[in-house]
Structures are given as C-alpha cells and as structure tokens.
C-alpha cells in the first residue's frame, strides 16, 4: 500500500473544507484534499437536465422513518448544487437550549463572534442581496401574499454574479454565475499549493504512536506526523495511506461522523456524543393555487430560490418562511398532490392530477418554513459499515410540524388560495405515514461544545482528546439555524482555520523557526 505524507490532510472539498485548505496552504503548509465524489469542471460538466442518471451521480440520500437527508458527493461538496442562498444565522439561533436548559452552542461562539467570518465568507463568495428587478415572479407573488396580511418580507442574499434566471440552480449552473467553491475557494487553494484528489474515500483514521521527528524549521516546524488516514480509490478500490501532521474533517455532517464512527476503536477517547445531536432545520412545506385574478407566479423562470424570505415569525415561532420553485421532477417525486376538497377520484393521478399539473407553472405557490427544531437526529452504525438515520417522532416535533403547517395554510387561505393537499412520497412511490422531515441542512453530528460531555469537538474545532484532528464542516454546527446552513458552515470553517494558523504560528515561534508561516487572513 502506498503511503504519502502531507502537512495537512483535509477530507472533503465542501463548505467546511475549502476555507481551511486555502488558509493553511497560504500559510505555507503542504495541503492535500481528498474527495470521495467525482471531479467537476464547472464550465463543462453541469447540465440543465432532470435525468436521474446525471443527478444521482452527485446527489445522494439517507432516509429513516421520520427524517430524510440529501447530500452531495462531488468536488466542491454541495456548493455546485445548492440554491446559493447565503444568509447569516439569526442571533436567536445561537441562544438555543436543549430540553435541560443547556445552551447548544459553546459559550464563546455566537453571532457576534461569527460576524467577522461571515464578512469574509460574503466577500469570498460575492454574496449580495438580490435587487428588486431580479426577484422572480414566484418570489414577488409570495411577497404580495405576505404584504396582504401585514407581514414583513426581505430580499434574500445569494452567492451569484450574472444570474441568467434559467431556473436550473439545483442541477449546477452552466453559466458559471453561481459562486460555488469550484470557482472561488478551490482554485485559490490550488494556486496556493493545495493538491486535490477526487474519487478518493477516507475509510479510517488512527493516531501515529511512533511519530516521526518534527522538523525544527520551515512552515511545519514543531509538528510531527500525528495521524494516518487509510483511503481507497472509489473506482479501483486501490488503497492508500496518508500520514499528516494535521487532519481536518470536512466531509459533511454524515461523512465526517461516519468516518469517526468507523475509527472509534483507533480513537477510543472520542466523545459519546458522536453521531448524535443532528439538527435538520425543521422544514415544513405546503402548496396552494393562487386565486383567479392574482398576479401569476412562474415556477420555471428565475433562480431556484425565488428571492424572498420572511423573518416575521422568527421571534414568535423561531421560523423563517420562503417560497420555493421546484422543477417538475422535484415536485412530482416529493409528494402526491390534490386540490383540497376536489371530489374527483383518482385524485393524485389521472385527469385530476393532469389538471393540477397544468396549473403548476403559473398558479401554484409553494411555501416552506425552516425552524429551530431541536437536534434530535442520530446516526446508528449498522453491521457492515452503513449508517441509519433515526429521529424520534416526539410530541413536540409533531406539534411544531402541525402548527407550522397550519400557519402556512392560513397564509394561503386568507389570501384566497386553494390549499393543495400533499402526501410525501417514499422511495417506491408510496406514501410516507406519520411525521416526516426532509432536509439538506443537516448539521451537528460532531458538534462543538465547551466539554466532551456536551460534544465531540472544542469551540476551536479540535476533536476532544485528539490534538491536531479537527472537524470544520456542518458536523460541528450545534443547532438548527432556521436559514440555509452553508454560509454559517463556511464562516465557522474560516474561524477554525484561522485558529489553526494562529496556533501553528505560535508553535513555529516557540521552536525558533525563522520562517514566517502565517498569512494575513483578511
């Protein structure tokens, strides 16, 4: 088996991985990134299609009885496929407590602490608030529905430059307008010397007990090789080992937890909080038909996220509300639909369904709420290495879901909309029974905490008990945010990277290195 050495090994290439790669490579360390998913050239590989054979190459799901999670495995992680919504988490998100009244976030990490890193992330991704003239029709119609009821609404913020409004954000932007990591952080990291290997999966981590001597000078002065990561090429199953002085886990909430769970024997001091505390942003979706004479929406024109978000119920209910513009594949695959009170049978297929689908483009409005639901999801390792996702259907979650859905229906009804009944579909086209949340905003499987009793990593992102091993991705984020999670993951990864560089610089000075290793971060 081939063994390679690198100062820093970063597992993953998404929002949690890209910032450390850039900052540590810029600090003069040798950086290697490994990515399980395939390489993507953002200017040639993306397609405007709903062909599942294309989509399934990059996007995957993990589904349990009450929670279904969608995640990306590709160069750039989910950044190639997300809706570009880039919002800071509200102050109240950082103040959330668990059922015993304990704060979910470490005491030193809150909105004020993250704001400078949000600034940096905004700058790197060219995040801007959408101009009124670029808000898609469906977003304007949503805004008017809120306005009619005296509710506030904001123009949202996006990581995009030169949007064409094609409506295919979620299959990858073929115009290079989306400011994904593929055209922002990763090229800069490579320019700074980082190497990226795609199609390479990390399977286990172990500490190196007999550590090769640390160099006395140079960017890595004072740092021995501390960890060995076993990997395999996904295509050929060829295995490889990397020995690294610093290992940063950025493979996503599921990938990072799964890797640590597989490595538990080699890392016996891992917190027993590993794989628990998964938050999922409590998404509740509803649909309706706009009343006759109301301005029309347009489900297929304009960016995928239609521009507007309401914080009107953030203080009172801990939720934000947005409109959504699913492509036909997303809409049909997500749910069976029928107009409330439509007596025709069959309702979800045949004539009644055809009538409803003909009205989808211009008359349908889809709303969804994201909320600060408690981090109750957990991963269970099965024999054979796969993981299951579990979420208890608590009375509190049931009540949250029902009350939120009722609010969304009420907004529609008071505007004269006809509510569309939805039954979420399961994997074989049948109907999911009981409470079910789907999310691409899952975080927290290795959450930050002040002590190992509360979480897996310290507020600096370092795994408790394992110096030099870090978690910098969504796995470290301790709570639901009620907004899209990408910007918070990125800002926190910038913060963690800065801490590593700072610590490294102090060490270099302590051993008398004459090499300046710290790059200016801002």
């Amino acid at each position: 088996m081939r063994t390679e050495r690198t100062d820093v090994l970063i597992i993953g290439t998404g929002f949690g991985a890209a910032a450390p790669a850039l900052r540590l490579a810029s600090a003069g360390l040798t950086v290697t990134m490994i990515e399980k998913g395939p390489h993507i050239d953002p200017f040639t590989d993306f397609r405007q299609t709903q062909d599942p054979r294309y989509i399934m190459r990059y996007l995957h799901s993990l589904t349990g009885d009450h929670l279904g999670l969608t995640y990306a495995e590709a160069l750039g992680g989910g950044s190639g496929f997300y809706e570009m919504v880039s919002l800071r988490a509200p102050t109240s998100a950082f103040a959330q407590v668990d059922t015993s009244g304990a704060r979910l976030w470490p005491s030193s990490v809150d909105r004020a602490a993250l704001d400078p890193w949000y600034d940096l992330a905004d700058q790197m991704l060219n995040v801007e608030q959408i101009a009124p003239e670029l808000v898609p029709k469906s977003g304007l119609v949503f805004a008017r529905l809120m306005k009619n009821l005296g509710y506030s609404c904001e123009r949202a913020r996006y990581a995009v430059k030169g949007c064409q409004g094609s409506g295919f954000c979620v299959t990858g932007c073929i115009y290079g307008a989306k400011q994904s990591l593929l055209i922002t952080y990763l090229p800069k990291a490579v320019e700074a010397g980082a190497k990226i290997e795609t199609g390479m999966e990390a399977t286990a981590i172990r500490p190196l007990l007999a550590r090769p001597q640390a160099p006395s000078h140079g960017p890595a002065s004072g740092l021995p090789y501390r960890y060995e990561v076993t990997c395999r090429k996904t295509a050929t199953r060829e295995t490889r080992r990397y020995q690294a002085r610093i290992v940063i886990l950025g493979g996503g909430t599921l990938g990072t937890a799964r890797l640590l769970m597989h490595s538990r024997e080699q890392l016996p001091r891992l917190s027993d909080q590993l794989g628990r505390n998964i938050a999922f942003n409590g998404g509740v979706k509803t649909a309706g038909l706009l009343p006759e004479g109301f301005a029309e929406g347009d489900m297929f024109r304009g960016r995928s996220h239609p521009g507007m978000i309401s914080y009107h119920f953030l203080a009172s209910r801990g939720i934000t509300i947005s409109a959504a513009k699913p492509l036909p594949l997303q809409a049909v695959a997500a749910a069976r639909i029928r107009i409330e009170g439509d007596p025709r049978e069959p309702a979800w297929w045949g004539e009644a369904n055809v009538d409803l689908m003909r009205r989808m483009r211009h008359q349908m409005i889809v709303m969804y709420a994201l909320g600060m639901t408690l981090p109750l999801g957990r991963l269970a390792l099965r024999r054979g290495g796969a993981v299951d996702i579990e979420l208890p259907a608590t009375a509190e979650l049931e009540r949250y879901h029902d009350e939120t859905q009722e609010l969304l229906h009420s907004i529609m009804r008071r505007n004269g909309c006809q509510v569309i009944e939805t039954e979420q579909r399961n994997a074989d086209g049948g109907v999911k029974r009981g409470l079910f949340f789907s999310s691409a905003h899952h975080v927290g499987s290795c959450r930050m905490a002040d002590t190992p009793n509360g979480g897996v990593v310290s507020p600096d992102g370092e795994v408790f008990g394992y110096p030099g091993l870090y978690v910098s991705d969504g796995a470290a984020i301790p709570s639901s945010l009620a907004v899209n999670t990408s910007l918070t993951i990125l800002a926190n990864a910038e913060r963690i990277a800065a801490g590593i560089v700072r610590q490294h610089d102090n060490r270099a000075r302590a051993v008398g290195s004459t090499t300046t290793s710290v790059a200016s971060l801002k």
Partner: protein
Amino acid sequence: MVMLGLAATGCGRPTLARMLYPEAAELTGDAVERSLQAFVLTVVPGAEQPGRIIRAFADPALKLAPYRRILVADLDRRAHSSGSPSFEQQSAEQRTGTIQDGLASGGIAGKLYNGAVFLTQVVYYSGLWNSAAACPSIGFNGPYRGDDGPVGYPEPETFLPPALTRDGNPE
C-alpha cells in the same frame, strides 16, 4: 429524496414475481409495449408521445425493468377478472378502475403499481427522454434557451412589504 425515489422504484424479488406470473414470459414485446402505453395514457390522460415514456420501464437505472412484464401480466389478470380480454382493450374508465384496484391491493403488487404510477408521472412531467421538448402541457420547456419571458414584473417594489432588516440578513 428525488433521486432515492427513482433509484428505488420497484420492489425487489423479481424471481419470485416471475414465478407468480408465469404468463409474463409468454407476452410478446409488442404486447408489453401496447399495454404499457395504455397504462401511461391512463395515468396521464392526453400524454404526448407515450412511446417515449415507456422507455423508462426498460431502463435498468430506474429499477422497474425486471418487473415490467409482471406489471403487464397483472394488469391483464385484473382486466380478465372484470370480463375484459386484456388491459389494453379496456375502456379508459375500465383501465382507471384496474389501476385503482392494483394500487389498493397492497403487498408486492401494490408497491409495483405505486412505483409504476410514480415513474410515469416523473418521466412525463420532467421530460425525461425528451429533454428538447420537455413537457409542453405544463409549460416546462426543458433547458433554458433565453426566450422564456422576463424573470420578474415591472415595478417589483409594489409587491414588496416592508422589510425588517437593512441587508436581508436576520438580526
């Protein structure tokens, strides 16, 4: 969720299913195609080019392929039991009843019908195998060609309620 749904359409156990429907092996390719087209036109009345849609039933990536003959055999059995020579020869109303019956039957057959209706809707409305035309009946034109009308409305400010924030970020 979308991808998972498509990947997992079908119910497993193709060998067992073939044992339960020995007549499936006797069906000609033409008969299977005609029945599946009739199925598609019942699930989506008025669907354009049903011949394209039924390609999904034979696509190994979508996992219904091992069951398409079983589905046709089951449709015909249910048609026979109501006095029709075959599903294909039933009226539109009768076909609707046959499919409803299959959906209500539970077990493997119920899953098969659920999967087949699901697949038909997904393939038709998303324009799979016809990406250039996509799905004109719902105004979905497929890949963006730059000729799909304006993104928003003139005077968008008239739609917007007061904002709580100065830059779109929550406080």
